[in-house]
């Protein structure tokens, strides 16, 4: 076994191919440039699009020079990230922020909606088949609940 391929080397990302594989220039003179290198990520089901020019580590499965893989880049080098599972993804924490940390609480099935109804509302319609125009007086706000959300994405 060539022990050179037991180490992990720093490499620069020259380009990322449409299939997600990487074109890499390895820092060590021992290792030639590498093409179509797959990424191995520690977040199961995750795929990423990385920034060109970022640095990551290259290792070799089984110490085999024919089987390189890229891994371990900086979080700031991620342009796009996708997590995919065929059955379920759970994000479990007492506080979950989506988008940024200054967001608003999300609405869920059963959450209350308050409708500030004006005291008098113009109404038109028919009564006994005759056109009707009048005013509807509503003394208090109306309350409702969210009843038809996306049943596949849930939040607490």
């Amino acid at each position: 076994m060539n022990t050179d391929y037991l180490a992990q080397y720093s490499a620069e990302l020259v380009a990322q191919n449409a299939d997600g594989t990487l074109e890499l220039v390895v820092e060590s003179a021992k290792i030639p440039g590498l093409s179509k290198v797959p990424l191995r990520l520690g977040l199961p089901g995750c795929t990423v699009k990385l920034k060109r020019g970022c640095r990551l580590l290259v290792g070799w499965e089984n110490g085999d020079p024919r089987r390189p893989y890229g891994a371990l880049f900086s979080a700031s080098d991620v342009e796009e990230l996708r997590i995919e599972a065929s059955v379920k993804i759970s994000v479990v924490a007492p506080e979950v922020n989506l988008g940024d940390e200054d967001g608003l609480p999300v609405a869920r099935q059963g959450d209350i909606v308050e409708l500030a109804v004006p005291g008098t509302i113009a109404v038109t319609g028919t009564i006994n088949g005759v056109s009707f125009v009048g005013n509807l007086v509503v003394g208090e706000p109306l309350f409702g609940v969210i009843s038809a959300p996306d049943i596949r994405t849930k939040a607490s």
Partner: protein
Amino acid sequence: MIDYLAWYTMRVASTNADGTLELISLHPGAPSLSAVPVRLDPGASTKPDAGADVLVGFDNGSPAAPFATLPGGPMREVTITAEKKISVRVPDLELGPDGTRQPVARDGDVVTVPLVLTLPEGALAGMAPAGEVVSTGLVLSDPIVGTIEATATKTKAA
């Protein structure tokens, strides 16, 4: 010793109740392994299906200390856990299956309700001539506008 400095591809035979893996070696330089702990990115966990591939390394190059990591292929379930907080910071975030997504509603977002009322028989009995009252399609001139008031306390979205 040198053999255990490499990371080897192994196939998952099964996942034990404690999350460790039973692994079949795909390389003659490494034996198949039992009860191998899994190391993933912070907070991530999964139960790889039988047949999935993982990489196996050895702490300190010790045959007695294998660990599995960097799983390949599709996953059935993925869980990301943190004791305090998880933040996803990005300008554009999509949740759920492809092709079915809609923007999420948040605390304070505006709700507009275009109302068409159909009142039950007799509801306007005091306002109409004597006899049966049939009212249909009473339309309010303006939609009612309100806000979402009580929502999640733990999950926020921008």
